[in-house]
């Protein structure tokens, strides 16, 4: 490891942490060393294991559910829950803020930590300390204000004030600026730097490489659940390109199906698509985006979490997300209206959601009921469902997609992630779509199942269907797609044929809006 200039003592050392979930090795002997008065960034693609690592550190996954040692301030610690890690001064601030909107700033800061005696809260003391803490994070709002009435940027500061109240020594920030605008982000970054000056170390997970370059002292890169390298920003002269190389640098194996695409004419087109956030009226999550899909083509949509890729897809699929502002959809040369999901399905569009369990499946259902659920009318006469046809259809998909289950009567919860995903794919293949939008189709499933899913995708394309594959895993985009769009902050920033694309170029377009890349 490089010798940094930081001569402060080591505050945290995570030694060969391994964490397994059923069927997936999320972390594989990951090591991380953080010194006092240091801002340590963790970089990696979605699903690389960053959040899992932080959950191990903060006790969300308690001691005993992982292998390896955590040495904190010189002693091996074994946190059983978040309470214990917080007591030790490790506070994690999640991307999704954990504030109660209906409570005031003061109430939120002291929630679970109320000053007072025998359960009676000393509000005078709380108020006094709240004002003090708010001053430290540079917030001059009335501490009686309800949290829902202050912006996201200020809410983030309240989270930090809450952490400071717990005598934080090591602050973990998971994508702290993901929801913030530029000036709020800058303020937050300055605050983190200021805290460092006062002896508080931070671990920061972020996709915004420019921010990392700006404030981080050390960067640890995690890829596929392994810690790849630790870079000293100043000593090594690290820039964005260097980080990107670390994040994506891996050999493309033959995990991807051999294919020769026979690509037809453009049959699906979206023009100037703009969508507003469902709650925040001033926030546009998709901005003026246009793209096309050809028959028999797999179009990759590359974007990091929060870039607006899911929002784009779901808003096209029957306006399932956000508020439609403007845009047109054309299919086979004619403009079509997709105001409801039923209309979208009727026009031959299918959307396989990113979140299988909460959006893709009814977990109380059996496999056979799930398979037919998006187009019951196909196996019904009048409105009576034909059980026999249902069983036959699902049996066919069980065989053709090789869903591993004793029978199709089995509940979908009994299946592994990969097989559940096959059920979802079967469900949408059953609707006879012309266009399939696949949102992170291989998230959370093991390598073997991934390869099978890739093959299914290529087979569907070979049948002349158009496919949009949303993914943040660049190797799979490069291995499966024919053409790739990149999306950043709701805008389509680049379009590349797969032959012209490489991971560095894509990652650059996924992390900045400037179209400096020459295609």
């Amino acid at each position, binding site marked *: 490891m490089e010798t940094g200039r930081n001569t402060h003592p080591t505050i945290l050392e995570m030694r060969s942490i391994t964490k397994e979930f059923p069927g997936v090795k999320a972390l594989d002997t990951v090591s991380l060393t953080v010194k006092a008065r240091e801002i340590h960034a963790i970089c990696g693609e979605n699903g690389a294991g960053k959040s899992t690592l932080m959950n191990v550190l903060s006790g969300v996954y308690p001691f005993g559910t992982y292998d390896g040692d955590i040495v904190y301030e010189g002693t091996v610690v074994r946190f059983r829950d978040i309470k214990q890690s917080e007591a030790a001064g490790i506070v994690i601030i999640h991307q999704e803020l954990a504030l109660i909107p209906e409570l005031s700033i003061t109430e939120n800061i002291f929630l679970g930590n109320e000053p007072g005696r025998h359960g009676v809260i000393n509000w005078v003391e709380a108020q006094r300390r709240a004002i003090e803490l708010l001053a430290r994070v540079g917030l001059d709002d009335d501490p009686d204000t309800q949290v829902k009435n202050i912006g996201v940027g200020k809410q983030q500061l309240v989270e930090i004030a809450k952490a400071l109240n717990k005598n934080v020594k090591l602050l973990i920030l998971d994508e702290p600026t993901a929801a913030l605008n530029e000036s709020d982000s800058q303020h937050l970054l300055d605050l983190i730097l200021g805290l460092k000056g006062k002896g508080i170390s931070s671990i920061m997970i972020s996709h915004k490489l420019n921010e990392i370059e700006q404030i981080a002292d050390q960067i640890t890169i995690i890829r596929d659940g392994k810690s790849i390298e630790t870079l000293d920003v100043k000593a090594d002269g690290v820039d964005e390109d260097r980080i990107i190389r670390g994040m994506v640098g891996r050999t493309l194996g033959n995990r991807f199906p051999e294919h020769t695409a026979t690509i037809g004419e453009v049959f699906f087109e979206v023009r100037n698509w703009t969508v507003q956030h469902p709650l925040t009226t001033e926030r546009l999550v998709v901005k003026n985006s246009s793209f096309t899909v050809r028959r028999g083509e797999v179009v990759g949509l590359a974007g990091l979490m929060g870039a607006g890729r899911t929002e784009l897809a779901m808003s096209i699929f029957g306006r399932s997300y956000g508020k439609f502002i403007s845009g047109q959809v054309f299919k086979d040369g004619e403009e079509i209206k997709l105001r409801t999901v039923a209309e979208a399905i009727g026009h031959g569009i299918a959307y396989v959601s990113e979140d299988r369990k*909460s*959006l893709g*499946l009814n977990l109380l259902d059996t496999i056979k009921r799930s398979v037919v659920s998006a187009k019951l009318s196909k196996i019904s006469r009048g409105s009576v469902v034909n059980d026999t046809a249902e069983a036959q259809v699902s049996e066919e998909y069980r065989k053709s997609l090789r869903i591993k289950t004793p029978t199709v009567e089995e509940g979908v919860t009994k299946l592994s992630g990969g097989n559940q995903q096959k059920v979802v794919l079967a469900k949408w293949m059953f609707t006879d779509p012309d266009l399939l939008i696949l949102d992170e189709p291989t998230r959370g499933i093991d390598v073997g199942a991934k390869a099978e899913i890739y093959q299914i995708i290529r087979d569907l394309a070979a049948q002349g269907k158009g496919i949009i594959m949303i993914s943040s895993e660049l190797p799979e985009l490069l291995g499966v797609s024919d053409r790739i769009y990149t999306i950043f902050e709701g805008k389509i920033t680049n379009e590349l044929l797969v032959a012209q694309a490489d991971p560095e170029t894509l990652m650059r377009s996924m992390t900045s809006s400037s179209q400096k890349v020459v295609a």
Partner: protein
Amino acid sequence: MSAPETDRSSGFQIRDLKKLFGGGGSLKQFGILGALVVIIIIFQVWTGGKTLQPGNIINIVQQYSYILILAIGMVMVIIAGHIDLSVGSVAAFTGIIVALAMKDWNFPWWAAIILGLVVGGLIGAWQGFWVAYVGVPAFIVTLAGMLIWRGGNQFIGDSATVPVDTGFQVIGKGYLPEFGPNFGVNNATMLLGIFVVLVLIGLEMRGRRTRKVMGASAAPVWISVLRVVILGGVVLVAAYLFATGRVGTSFPVSGIILAVLVVAYSFLTNKTTIGRHIYAVGGNKHAAELSGVNSKRVNFFVMMNMSVLAALAGMIFVARSQASGPFDGTGWELDAIAAVFIGGAAVSGGIGTVAGSIIGGLVMAVLSNGLALKGIQSDLVQIIKGLVLLIAVGVDVFNKSQGRPSIIGLMTRNRSGQGPTDDAISAQVTPGGGTPDTAVPADLPR
């Protein structure tokens, strides 16, 4: 996750018993059916044979048919993830309108029944509108309805009791007619029993045939035979009991109405698209919507349907008590809801069956009836009913948390895997206002 399959064609295996009822479906029903049988036997012994006397079982059917009719609607409401507290008041409101229609406006009894159903439909449309299209939780809408329709009953009827025609009374007090030669039994009831047995045999054969067509493994033949013999035997014994009551009594008309509704709604919930949609919306509303299900229409339908059934229940009650009164239907919602949960439905929605709810309702009915036969005071009866509800659902929850479907599942544990509970609960966490891109590692935490 499931244990390796063993040779299933040879010999008697206790797990085959699971196929006796439910046929691979809800095992909870089986457990609660067992509980019903046990309760009947206990009371039969304890009351010295009074429980299964013809007069008493006829009485049970007449007295609880309207609660069971409510349970049919209620289970659909609960599967969809809602609740309806207004059913007793809706029943009372319909009852007074129907009674006045016949008394003051000279409606014939059949027109009055149609009017009652229309009134129920309108009330249901009103409540369904608030639940489905405005988005007010059904708990609130129907709590308001409970007040509104109760007050409506007392306002329209001037808090008085209004008698109804004898023609109308048939739906609550009537029996199957006597005809043909006198064998000392009610011929109509016996014929009905034989007809039901024939239908059972037909269904069993058809079921075996379809399973063969689908290439699925059917249960052993002896299971089919045993099932038909047991069910057919129960039906025939019941028919004989109903047919040999006091002269002039037989199987009640309200029981016929109930039976027709049970068959119709079992079909609706199991075999039709709207039935599937109800389960889909209750099981995972977001996934259902992303599959093209119009969840608003589904919610509207279940709420409206419930009020129509409540209106029918109200009319049967009025017919039986020969008059509509200001306090009709008080507390019915609680009996109906209790029946549904004893019958295995889940508070969080998505789970429940019509048949299970009927069995749950019968458990409560036999229990109340038996305790009354023993002369137990009504205050104690209430306490016991409350405890039974709590224990029944508590056992269910405990079994689920242990990954077992039921008591029977416990006996045959080696084969069954884990229940859907944990995943089902985590699936209830909806993305809410957050962006759909949020970092839920889809497959990781279990």
